[in-house]
């Protein structure tokens, strides 16, 4: 794939959109579920660092944002002292919200014609995120300890005598034939006595006489 993905070049600058990726599989970001620094294992640290609201004092589309600021912003910041909230009135501009996270990612969002409750919901959603972009999960599970018995390694099933003997070694390198050759069959027949030795029989006859 030549070069990273070209994000849609709408009116919005590039680096604000990086917490979303959509399109076909090849375009989407893909990865595994990740928590920054095992967040939530020991304790939960809110990843949201700061929120900036830009709105217009008079514009109709910023009505929701203005109401939200009058009623809920103070409660929100009291509940979440770790999150810095900036309010930036901008004349004749559409209301937007930019959330920045501890891992350096940031997200731009347009709040045009949104009601107070909607903005509250979006803010809670943005607060509880980990700052990682939404991706296509390659696997639904992720584990820090994939192997209990220890992953395979080349020396695991290698017999220990190989370390000691200097190669080439007959036992380690010779060809193992599954079927016995005729010579081996004859030797085994001779060994287990199924072939009587003629001379022995002759000798016994002479003894008898």
């Amino acid at each position, binding site marked *: 794939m030549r070069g990273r993905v070209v994000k849609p070049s709408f009116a919005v600058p590039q680096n604000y959109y990086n917490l979303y990726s959509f399109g076909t599989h090849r375009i989407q970001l893909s990865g595994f579920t990740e928590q920054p620094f095992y967040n939530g294992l020991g304790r939960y640290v809110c990843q949201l660092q700061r929120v900036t609201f830009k709105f217009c004092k008079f514009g109709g589309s910023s009505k929701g944002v203005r109401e939200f600021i009058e009623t809920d912003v103070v409660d929100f910041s009291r509940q979440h002292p770790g999150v810095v909230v900036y309010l930036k009135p901008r004349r004749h501009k559409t209301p937007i919200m930019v959330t920045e996270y501890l891992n350096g990612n940031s997200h731009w969002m347009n709040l045009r014609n949104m009601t107070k409750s909607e903005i509250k919901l979006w803010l809670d959603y943005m607060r509880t995120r980990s700052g990682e972009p939404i991706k296509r999960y390659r696997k639904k599970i992720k584990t820090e300890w994939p192997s209990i018995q220890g992953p*395979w390694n080349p020396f695991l099933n290698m017999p220990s005598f190989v370390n000691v003997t200097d190669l080439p070694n007959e036992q380690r390198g010779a060809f193992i034939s599954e079927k016995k050759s005729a010579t081996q069959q004859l030797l085994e027949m001779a060994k287990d006595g199924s072939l009587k030795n003629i001379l022995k029989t002759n000798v016994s006859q002479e003894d008898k006489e």
Partner: protein
Amino acid sequence: MSNLTKFRRTQQWLTFARLWYLYDATYQDVFDSAIVIAQYLRGMNKPIYDHVRQDVGNHVVVINTSKVSMPVDEWKWRMYSHHSRYGGGQTWAAAHELHSKDPTIVLYKAVYKEVGSAPRAVNLIRSPTMARLHLFPDACIPPEIKANICDQIRQVQPVLKSLKDYSEEEVEKFPKIVDYPEDYVVK
């Protein structure tokens, strides 16, 4: 704190270690052993084999390539072509001619073809893989290479012993199936 701790880094080194294998080619067929050697070169003897993402290939040291064997008469009719890239520069040499000239060429060419036979292997994978093949006509290996060897590849066929190879005592003690007939003249 990243996922990769010291223990995990050494565990990865161990799993993806590049081993040195030894292969004794006495009386082994050229093309059958080439298949086995090519597999070991590309690391297909490991369960972690993956031809795309990681190169888990090994080194293979082949000794006794001068004693390599071929099916009957193949030394005569197995031809190797060579082209000097000039007009009419194509020449053929039989296997026995090449082998007498340089005992490692026949096995090298067999492994060269076998490594290249894998899909999409010719351009990228073949030259670095072939660099990991070390061929020696007889059993003596340079000490620095011998120090690296950690395992041996099992041979593909039994080593045929001629009458001279059997020890005197073995021949003596072997069961005698039938005796000579009456008044047989020992020729």
